[in-house]
């Protein structure tokens, strides 16, 4: 737990893939360069967080929201990120909405299924427990970062 914030790295495999896809085919990257970029990405997140937090505090809010992050991008002179970020946010919101509706639908379907199965099988499904656990995990996901 005594790690410095900059030591919290993002997974190497993902960083490498992002780099490779951004560059033309046949271009390689040395381990040192890859590791430096990974570190830079962590520093970027920390700096952006700090910037975004300033906006939140200015707005007398305790919770960082997407708007704060977008304002931070502007402040950090990464305006070119703002448009793709807004698109990603829209897609993310749609996906979240879809997830919610899908899991509600799943529950409805499951209830229908269980009603008809009740007559045949005995209740030894541990599928139900798995679903419940998954739903609990989903709820955890929605919890906000708490210091």
């Amino acid at each position, binding site marked *: 737990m005594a790690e410095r914030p900059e030591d919290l790295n993002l997974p190497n495999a993902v960083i490498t893939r992002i780099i490779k896809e951004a560059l033309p085919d046949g271009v390689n*990257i040395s381990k040192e360069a890859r590791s430096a970029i990974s570190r830079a990405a962590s520093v*970027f997140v920390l700096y952006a967080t700090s910037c975004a937090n300033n906006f939140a505090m200015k707005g007398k809010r305790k919770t960082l*929201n997407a708007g704060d992050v977008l304002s931070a991008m502007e402040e950090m002179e990464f305006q070119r990120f703002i448009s793709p970020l807004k698109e990603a946010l829209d897609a993310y919101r749609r996906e979240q909405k879809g997830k919610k509706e899908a899991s509600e639908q799943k529950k409805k379907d499951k209830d229908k299924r269980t009603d008809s199965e009740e007559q045949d099988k005995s209740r030894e499904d541990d599928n139900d427990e798995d679903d419940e656990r998954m739903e609990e995990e989903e709820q955890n*996901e929605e919890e906000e970062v708490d210091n």
Partner: protein
Amino acid sequence: MAAAATAAVTIGPTAALVAEEGPSGEAAPAAAPPPQAPAASAGPRLSRLPLARVKALVKADPDVTLAGQEAIFILARAAELFVETIARDAYFCAQQGKRKTLQRKDLDNAIEAVDEFAFLEGTLD
């Protein structure tokens, strides 16, 4: 449409769970190809970086009280864009040296040359 959404539900939380559990987040993101892509109309890829790791970075800031899930997501996506940007700028330097392998010095040059990267000076050592 429903099938794709269901697929997203199955893969999404599972990937997040795996990312939460271990530091070896390499398997999880690699195993989760973007199923969201076909669902939206040629929409942007949602972030590949595990949100749990990004959340850990955000939590590291003592001044931050709470951060919404959307904020975490946008930060993850922004970090991705940042990696792409800095990789390309560093590659530009490598090309000048007629090399096809990006090296650490290319990165240092890019940081020095590009104003937006000024915040990185002194942080990578």
